[in-house]
C-alpha cells in the first residue's frame, strides 16, 4: 500500500516537473510515432502489480462481502460484515490505539529525528569529526536492521516484570516504585509498546534527515552564523524550513507504517491484556487466521486500506501544496 502510494506520488510529481522537458525531447527525436513500443516495457511491472497488489486487493474486497471459513465456497452476505464492524467495540478501540502508534512511530520520531540529526550534523560532526557522527548515526540506525519480531522478543525479555534487566536495575538503584509490570497491565502496555516503537523508528528518521541536511546549502548556515543567529534560531529557520520535503516523506511513510503495525503487538502482547494493545492489522489477522472468519477479517483489511489511502492522499496534497508554495517564493 505505502509503496504504491509513494511510487504513484513520485510518478505524479516527476511527471508534472518533466512534462515540458520530455515533450521537447520527444519532438526533437521523433519518438512520438514509436511511443507504442514503450508499452511493452510496462508489462512486467503491470503483471507484478495486478498479481501482487491489484488482484489481491479486489479479491479481498470480494471476500469482505462473504461469509467464509477459508474452506469450501464463500457465501455472499452483502454488507453484513461491515454492519457488524460498525458495532464492534474492539475494532474501534483498535483504531484509537492506532493513534498512539502514529504518535510513537511517526510524530515523535520525526521531531526527535530532525533535532538529533541537526545535533549530529551541526554539532557532533564539526567538533568530534565525521567519523564519530557516522558511528552514532549507525548506532541509532541499528534497531531498523534487526527484524521487528526479534526486537519484540528482546524487549519482552528486558521488560519482564520479575526477571527483566530493566526492573532488576530499577530495584537495585532503589527506584522500586518505577519497576512496573510493563506489558502485563492495561495502563502501561500500550505505553511500553510506544516507547519501543520510538526507539525503533528514530534511526530511520535520522538517516533521512541527515542526508537531507547534506543537500542544504552551507552558505545559508554560515551567513546566519555571521549575523549572530543562535544554533536554535538557525535550526528553526533554516534546517527545519529547508527539510520540508524530507519531513513530508517521513511523516507519510511512518504514519502508514503506524496504521498497519503488527509485529510488535503479535510478538509482545497478542493485543492484550484484554484489548489494551489491539490494533487494526492484528485484529484483521486474528479473524483471518485464528477465528477463521475470513470475510470479517477481509472487511477489516478493506476498511484499513481505504483509510490508509485517504490519509496518504491528504498528506501528499499538503506536501505538494508546500512544495508549490516554496517554488513560488
Amino acid at each position, binding site marked *: 500500500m505505502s509503496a504504491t502510494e509513494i511510487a504513484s506520488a513520485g510518478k505524479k510529481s516527476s511527471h508534472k516537473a518533466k512534462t515540458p522537458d520530455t515533450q521537447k525531447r520527444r519532438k526533437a527525436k521523433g519518438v512520438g510515432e514509436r511511443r507504442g513500443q514503450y508499452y511493452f516495457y510496462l508489462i512486467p511491472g503491470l503483471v507484478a502489480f495486478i498479481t501482487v497488489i491489484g488482484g489481491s486487493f479486489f479479491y479481498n474486497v470480494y471476500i469482505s462481502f462473504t461469509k467464509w471459513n477459508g474452506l469450501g465456497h464463500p457465501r455472499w452476505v452483502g454488507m453484513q460484515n461491515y454492519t457488524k464492524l460498525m458495532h464492534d467495540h474492539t475494532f474501534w478501540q483498535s483504531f484509537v490505539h492506532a493513534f498512539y502508534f502514529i504518535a510513537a512511530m511517526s510524530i515523535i520520531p520525526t521531531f526527535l529525528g530532525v533535532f538529533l540529526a541537526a545535533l549530529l550534523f551541526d554539532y557532533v560532526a564539526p567538533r568530534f569529526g565525521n567519523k564519530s557522527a557516522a558511528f552514532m548515526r549507525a548506532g541509532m540506525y541499528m534497531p531498523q536492521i534487526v527484524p521487528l519480531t526479534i526486537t519484540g522478543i528482546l524487549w519482552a525479555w528486558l521488560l519482564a*516484570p520479575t526477571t527483566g534487566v530493566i526492573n532488576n536495575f530499577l530495584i537495585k538503584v532503589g527506584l522500586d516504585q518505577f519497576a512496573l509490570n*510493563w506489558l*502485563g*497491565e*492495561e495502563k502501561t502496555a500500550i505505553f511500553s509498546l510506544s516507547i519501543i516503537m520510538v526507539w525503533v523508528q528514530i534511526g530511520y528518521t535520522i538517516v533521512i534527515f541527515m542526508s537531507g541536511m547534506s543537500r542544504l546549502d552551507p552558505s545559508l548556515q554560515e551567513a546566519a552564523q555571521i549575523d549572530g543567529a543562535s544554533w536554535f534560531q538557525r535550526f528553526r529557520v533554516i534546517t527545519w524550513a529547508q527539510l520540508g520535503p524530507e519531513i513530508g516523506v517521513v511523516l507519510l511513510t511512518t504514519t502508514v507504517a503506524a496504521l498497519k503495525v503488527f509485529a510488535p503487538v503479535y510478538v509482545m502482547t497478542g493485543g492484550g*491484556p*484484554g484489548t489494551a494493545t489491539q490494533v487494526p492489522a492484528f485484529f484483521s489477522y*486474528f479473524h483471518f487466521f485464528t*477465528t*477463521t472468519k475470513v470475510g470479517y477479517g477481509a472487511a477489516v483489511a478493506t476498511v484499513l486500506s481505504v483509510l490508509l489511502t485517504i490519509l496518504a492522499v491528504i498528506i501528499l496534497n499538503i506536501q505538494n501544496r508546500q512544495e508549490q508554495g516554496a517554488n513560488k517564493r
Partner: protein
Amino acid sequence: MRNESTKTSKKSSKAVKVAALAAAAALALAGCSKSGGDAAATTAAAEPTTFKVWWYEKDTAMASTWADALEELKAAHPNVTVTFELKTWDQIQKAGNAILDSDQAPDLAEWNKGNATAGSASQAGLLTDLTPYAAKYGWDTRLPESALLYGRYTDGLMGKGNLYGLSTYGEYVSWFYNKDYFTKNNLTVPTTPEELDALLATLKSQGQTMALGGAGYQIVHLAYALALTNASQQWVSDFQFFQNPVDFAPTSKEWGYAAAKIADWKKKGYFDSKVSGISPDDAVAAFEAGKNPLILGGTWLDDGIQKATVGFDWGKFQNPGALSVGSAGNLLVIPSRSKAPDLAAEFIDLVLSTKYQNELGNSGGLPLLADAAALTNPVTVKSYSVFDSIVKNNQLGMYPDWPVPGYYETQLAAGTKLLSDGDAAAYLKTIGDFYEQNKP
C-alpha cells in the same frame, strides 16, 4: 500431545503451518499421481499380503513403542509385507481426509482427534466403525468412557456415537510441588478446594506464592482447572459439544467460580504482584530454581522439570475438584478402504496390551492401561499415579480452547486482564460472549 500447538508459543506455529501447507500439497500430489489402480482394492481377500501403516509420532514414547509393537506383528504374520510411512500432524490435519478417499489410503493410521479431522472423515464414511472390534477385544470395557469419547463421533461431532478411533495414551494438567519445601514447613498436599485455599494462604504467610505464567497459556489452564472444580462430565459435554447451553454468569459454579477464585486469589496476594506480565517459561524456571514451591502445569513439562530441577525433590498432585484439565491422545483408526482391517485391529489391541502400555510408560509417555507396579521410569512413576486416578475416576475434562476457533487467544487476553485488574465480571462477559457468538 498435539494440543501443544495452542499451548506453546504461537510464533512457531505459523512457520510450521507454511511448511505444512507445502508438505500437504506434496502429499496430495503423491495421492493423485498413482490413482487409477483401483483393481488392487477389489482383489484383496481374507488373506492380506500387505499392511500399510501411517503415524506421525517422531522421537516420542509412542513412536518407539508402536515401532516395537509393529515388529511383533510382523513376526506373528511372516507372510504379510508391512510398510510404514512417517507422516506429520499437519499433513493429516490439512490433506489427510482427501487421501483416505483414494486407493492410497493406509490400512491403519494415527489420526487427529477432533471435529475437523476424524469427525469429518467419519461423517464422509472414510473410517471403519470399530464397535465390533471393541466388543471382540473388550476395548469398550477396558478403557473408561472419558478416554473413548475422543474416538466417538455422531454427524462428525466428537463425544458420542459410533467408535471410529482409539486413544492409546494421554496427558493432563496438575500441580507440581517442591517436596522438600513442603516437608520442611510441614505442609500437606491439599485434597479439597478449601485445603488448596488454606495452602495458598500459608504460603502467603511464609512470603511465598505459586508460580504462574499469567502472560501465557498457564492462566488459560488455571482458569479452566478452577472451572472444572465443580463441573460434571455433562457440563464438559455441554461446553465442548454444545449439548446444552453453558452458563457464564458470575453465579455459575463452573466459570463463575473460576473467575471469582482468581480475582479473590489476586486480592489476597496469592500470586506475584506482577503475575500478568510473567511468561510461562519464566514461571517454570522459577519453580525449577526453587523460588516458588508450587506451579500448575501439564505433563509436557515433566521431562524438563525432571532435568532442570536441581537441589530438591518434586512431586505432583491432582487439582482438587471434580475434574482435571487433560485428555486422551490422538487416535488410531482403520480407514474404510483398509485392505487389512482385522490385522489393523490386532495391532491396536497390541498397542493397548499391558506389555506395550508399560513400555510406553517407561519411555516417558502416559499410558492408559499400564500396570503401575511395572513402571520404573522415575518421571512416569510421579506422573502416572495421578493420571491413573484421573482416568479411572472418569475425570478428564479436556481443554478450554477446543469449542470454538480463536477461543485460546480470547481466553488468554481476558485471563491476563483478569490477573491485572481483578474484574471477574468483565472476564466472564468476554469469554461468554465469544463462546455464544462463535458456537455452531
